[in-house]
């Protein structure tokens, strides 16, 4: 059973709908202990990094130790940002720290008419082999909506450029994350979700 972690950031309806359409068996954990027993963990999220403050030390310990023992962990949008150490959007909130680095604001440039938030379809530039990206080609387009983004680290398997070049897909062993919304990215997004479900077995 996959645990879909609900920490009150926006709505889970779209993620639930996509997982259901793909035939995934999932549940929303009510306690941190439920995460320790899960076959895989998905941390979704739309909105503000501050909402992740609800994932307190107990939740971080449970999710962190499950991930350390090899349980696949997938962060989506703010959920991916939370895999890092923290974010300038809400300095008081602590990230999981599974990936080193900090989330910073995209630097808009008025002269080039680049707006922040970055809203819409943009392309993934592949940087290496990734299980999450099987069946897709570099240049695949997916739907983003965010103002803050992750740095390009060793875990970055695809990057995207809007003002800055940032990590749009991260993958390291059993840790996965996407800055965009696979549940809102048409066929490309469903392929990525399906790839994660295959990793989960």
């Amino acid at each position, binding site marked *: 059973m996959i645990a879909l972690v609900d920490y009150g950031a926006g709505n889970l309806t779209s993620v639930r709908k996509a997982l259901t359409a793909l035939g995934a068996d999932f549940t929303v954990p009510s306690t941190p202990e439920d995460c320790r027993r899960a076959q895989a963990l998905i941390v979704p999220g739309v909105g503000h990094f501050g909402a992740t403050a609800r994932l307190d030390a107990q939740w971080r310990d449970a999710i962190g130790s499950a991930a350390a023992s090899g349980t696949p962990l997938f962060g989506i949008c703010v959920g991916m940002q939370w895999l890092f150490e923290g974010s300038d959007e809400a300095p008081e909130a602590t990230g999981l720290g599974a990936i080193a680095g900090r989330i910073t604001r995209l630097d808009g440039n008025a002269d080039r008419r680049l707006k922040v938030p970055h809203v819409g379809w943009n392309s993934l530039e592949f940087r290496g082999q990734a299980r999450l990206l099987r069946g897709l080609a570099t240049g695949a387009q997916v739907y983003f*909506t965010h103002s803050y983004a992750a740095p390009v680290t060793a875990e970055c398997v695809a990057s995207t450029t809007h003002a800055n070049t940032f990590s749009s897909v991260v993958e390291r062993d059993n840790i996965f994350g996407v800055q965009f919304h696979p549940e809102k990215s048409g066929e490309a997004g469903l392929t990525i979700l399906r790839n994660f479900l295959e990793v989960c077995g």
Partner: protein
Amino acid sequence: MLTKRIIACMDVRDGQVVKGVQFQQLRHAGDPAALARRYNVEGIDEVVVLDITATLESRQALARTINAVAHEIFLPLTVGGGIRSEEDAAAAVDAGADKVSLNTAALRRPDLITTLARRYGSQAVIVAIDAKRRDDGFAVYVRSGTTDAARDAVAWAREAEARGAGEILLTSMDRDGTKAGFDCEMTAAVSDAVDIPVIASGGAGSVDHFADVFTRGHADAALAASIFHYAESSVSELKQYLRANGVPVRL
């Protein structure tokens, strides 16, 4: 590169898609879920469902319609029309909307923008502005275009952004349903005044109108209804044309 978005709007009344001219003379255009399915195959980037009678008849957006559309597409879905309170917005979100569009209610209760942005994030809150040209600028109308709100569209868009709106949906009432082209000047005036994306609406009649509003109008996205409903121009043909004319689109 971030692409320009093509958004299909479905004006819904009693569970059916309808379309008028300059907010009048409604005619039927089909079943929302069936249209959504077709648009998805053709490559639409987003879908908007507007419950057009909701404001006047005090009805909430039809949860059943939202749900049916949300099951057809894995694309961003916006719902508007008659969203007056946090409860109305929650009902739309629970039914499957990713974003809600506020119009009359945002002007009457601007704090609603902030409340919803805090609850769902700014990306989930669109402020829809219906405006007409006037000698001194662009006048905002509310209550389905029946009432002069005594506000200027540019100033109101700025305020909406400051209060937490994530996007502006700007409809030219002069052009709505006329197929005479988008109001590029009005769109550029609003788009240049805010940092959030502006969706241009009203007047789409041919593929070159879209190219115009993305270049001269500085629009981030363009929305149309009848041009897609009656298959006068398919979404894929439109996108091929835009790409050939140097406008980045998702193909």
